[in-house]
């Protein structure tokens, strides 16, 4: 790139001077401002991480236990993803707020300015990542909660009973008492246990 051409500019005014002073003040506080912002976001992420781990550990098992197998796996995966995303977000957020300890040669004013600009740029980039990870964490947690709330519970999973006479009944198991199995299909079917050849949980009552 060619060197820039320099000429005397227009006469400075009080207004232009004030603007120039404000720009320089903003420039001086650039790194501090970005890092302060990052610190606040990091606090938010840390709070979210605490919330997820608390909910997962304290409440998680009860809620998940009632779900059918595939949904248990899906909820577990979503919670794990949320945890990993939140942990990554916290790390990146902390890096944005505090930076990493590095050795830096600051031989000249230009080196110092380079270092400041790099710090501000890296912090801003890390902060953007931390925010994205925060929202990704929220998505994973909401998915886990949604699956827990709306996923089919194991108790509601249909069962298929086959009798020794070759009949097949599929429906929801409602009762097992006095050696009699009660299955709700379109109507209530009562099957004596001794007539039962097999009983299995199925994904759905197909044709």
């Amino acid at each position: 790139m060619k060197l820039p051409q320099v000429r005397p500019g227009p006469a400075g005014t009080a207004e232009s001077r004030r603007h120039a002073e404000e720009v320089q003040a903003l420039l001086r506080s650039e790194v501090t401002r970005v890092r302060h912002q990052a610190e606040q976001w990091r606090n938010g992420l840390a709070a979210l991480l605490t919330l997820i781990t608390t909910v997962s550990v304290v409440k998680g098992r009860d809620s998940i236990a009632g779900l059918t197998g595939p949904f248990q796996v899906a909820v577990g995966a979503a919670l794990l993803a949320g945890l990993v995303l939140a942990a990554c977000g916290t790390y990146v957020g902390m890096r944005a707020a505090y930076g990493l300890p590095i050795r830096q040669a600051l031989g000249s004013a230009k080196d110092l300015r380079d270092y400041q600009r790099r710090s501000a740029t890296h912090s801003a980039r890390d902060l953007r990542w931390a925010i994205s990870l925060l929202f990704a964490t929220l998505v994973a947690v909401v998915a886990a909660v949604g699956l827990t709330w709306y996923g089919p519970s194991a108790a509601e999973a249909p069962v298929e009973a086959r009798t020794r006479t070759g009949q097949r009944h599929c429906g929801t198991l409602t009762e097992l008492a006095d050696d009699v199995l009660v299955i709700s299909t379109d109507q209530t079917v009562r099957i004596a246990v001794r007539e039962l050849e097999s009983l299995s949980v199925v994904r759905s009552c197909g044709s």
Partner: protein
Amino acid sequence: MGDDTDAAASRMAHDGAGEEAGSAEPIEYVHGTEPGLAERAARTSEVELHPPGRVEEIIVTGPCPACGDTTFHVEPLFLYRGATARGRDVVVEVICACGVAHPGAPQGEDGCGRSWVLSVLVPG
């Protein structure tokens, strides 16, 4: 560019003492600009686009046309970022930040208080 003689001359013209830049008593702090500063600075300032290859900042270094001490100014171009800054005249108001303690300078000021405006044509 980079010729300290002009700066020393400007300093001599300013305080009339005829001393070399950096060896005399610092001049009085004055908040504002003075006629001729921009013309002198345009001849003596070293202007650089930074970092090389991208246009993010204009860095102006060289002697302050008023006090003669070396000053360093960074003009951020984030608003004009990238290609849009190329081929443009960017007006840069430089404020002396020589770091020398000038009599009468308010707390926190690190120059002689003078400012001057340069017009920098960023190559396309």
